[in-house]
């Protein structure tokens, strides 16, 4: 590939491109013919400097680092409309999720809360901890006061298996 990004003079990264392709399996960005149906239905579109079809285009060309570093992949709300409506079965949302996975691997511009979520899952088994709630009459209540049963917890092995699975990939 002989394309050069004129603003950064960077060349496409063929190796990274292959790593992304491996992660998305059946959906091929190469099949995209830029009809822009994904972007026209995207609710996040107005907040994105790079629109979904442009993300697909950059991934197709091999400008992977550029997309990841831009942080734009974290502006997707995962509403899945692009995946539903793509006539070529490219699924921009799956590509964005694959790019997120790669961003985490490379520790590149990942929102801190995403990593904090993982430690909460490891610690408690779930992403949320029980929250106090408040009625419209400003009475504070929790599960117990509402008469709801205790939340289940995963076995002790859970944490070790997740850590092992994370390391294996």
């Amino acid at each position, binding site marked *: 590939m002989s394309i050069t990004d004129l603003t950064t003079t960077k060349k496409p990264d063929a190796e990274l491109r292959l790593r992304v392709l491996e992660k998305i399996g059946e959906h091929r960005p190469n099949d995209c013919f830029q009809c822009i149906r994904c972007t026209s239905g995207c609710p996040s579109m107005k907040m994105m400097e790079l629109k979904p079809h442009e993300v697909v285009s950059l991934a197709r060309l091999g400008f992977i680092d550029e997309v990841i570093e831009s942080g734009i992949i974290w502006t997707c709300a995962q509403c899945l409309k692009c995946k539903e409506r793509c006539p070529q079965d490219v699924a921009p949302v799956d590509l964005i999720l694959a790019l997120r996975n790669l961003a985490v691997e490379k520790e590149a511009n990942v929102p801190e809360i995403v990593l904090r979520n*993982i430690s909460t899952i490891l610690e408690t088994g779930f992403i949320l901890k*029980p929250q106090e709630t408040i009625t419209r009459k400003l009475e504070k209540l929790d599960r117990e006061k509402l008469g709801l*049963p205790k939340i289940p917890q995963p076995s002790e092995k859970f944490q070790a298996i997740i850590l092992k699975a994370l390391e294996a990939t």
Partner: protein
Amino acid sequence: MRIPVYWGCVIPNSQYAYEMSVREVLPKLEVDLVELENVSCCGLPMRSVNAYVSVYMAMRNLAIAEETGLKDLLVPCTGCHLSFSEALHFWKQDEGLRKKIGLLLAEEGLKYDGIIRIWHLIDLLHDMVEKETVLKSVKKKLDGLKLASHYGCHIIRPSTLGRIDDSENPRKLDELIELLGAESLHYPEKLDCCGALLLWSRRDGAFTFSGLKLKAVQDRGFDGLVVSCPACGMMFDARQKVSAATVGAKLNLPVLYYSQLLGIAMGIDEEKLGLHLNRSPVDELLEKIR
């Protein structure tokens, strides 16, 4: 009928009203819930971090559900429903993945045989429970109410995974609302996303989504918005004030779960349905029914 239930994390940790109302209405329709022990996160939050681990996390819960020996699993959270459906898709397709994840499951003495069929509350009420059974349980018809329905993106898309209803023109929730005597009218913003999954990374963006949708529903003159997803419920109900502030609108729209609406029609005590926990002005809606 007995059915195991996987609550996920948003419902049992913050959306108590959804859990309470589901626990109240289902036994009245001869559906008894079986609690699951040892379950963990559905894997959806892990999808952004490591797709492989997210599939393992989903399959782990399905394997635990299978241990009950029952064939169906109720998953009232749309996010968990998507995570499970997607994991099952990969599981069926990819033999290598099946082997690797099978080994991880075996470490806890678990295995998945592919028996379980997953249900969301909406298709369970629409397709599994007989219409007559629902109608028999209704004590108070909700005539005259004009309601807007909101499904939640993840139970209707992507259709390639086999979702509970049509992706562009879902009708099941609307039909369930109409079964109770209320009107469920179409509106152009019906398929718009609530923005909940943006809360982690683009907070203002998330509340712009919810604020704009709420404003549209309110401006069209609906009496209320009926939801069937805990994340959407949280955005439209508990976060209505901040959504309003974000889009510069004055919002005062009753938002409630379908299970709560059904419970009202069944004549169940309002507190038992968690209606005192809704932060949106549901009293306005209740006044119209009383």
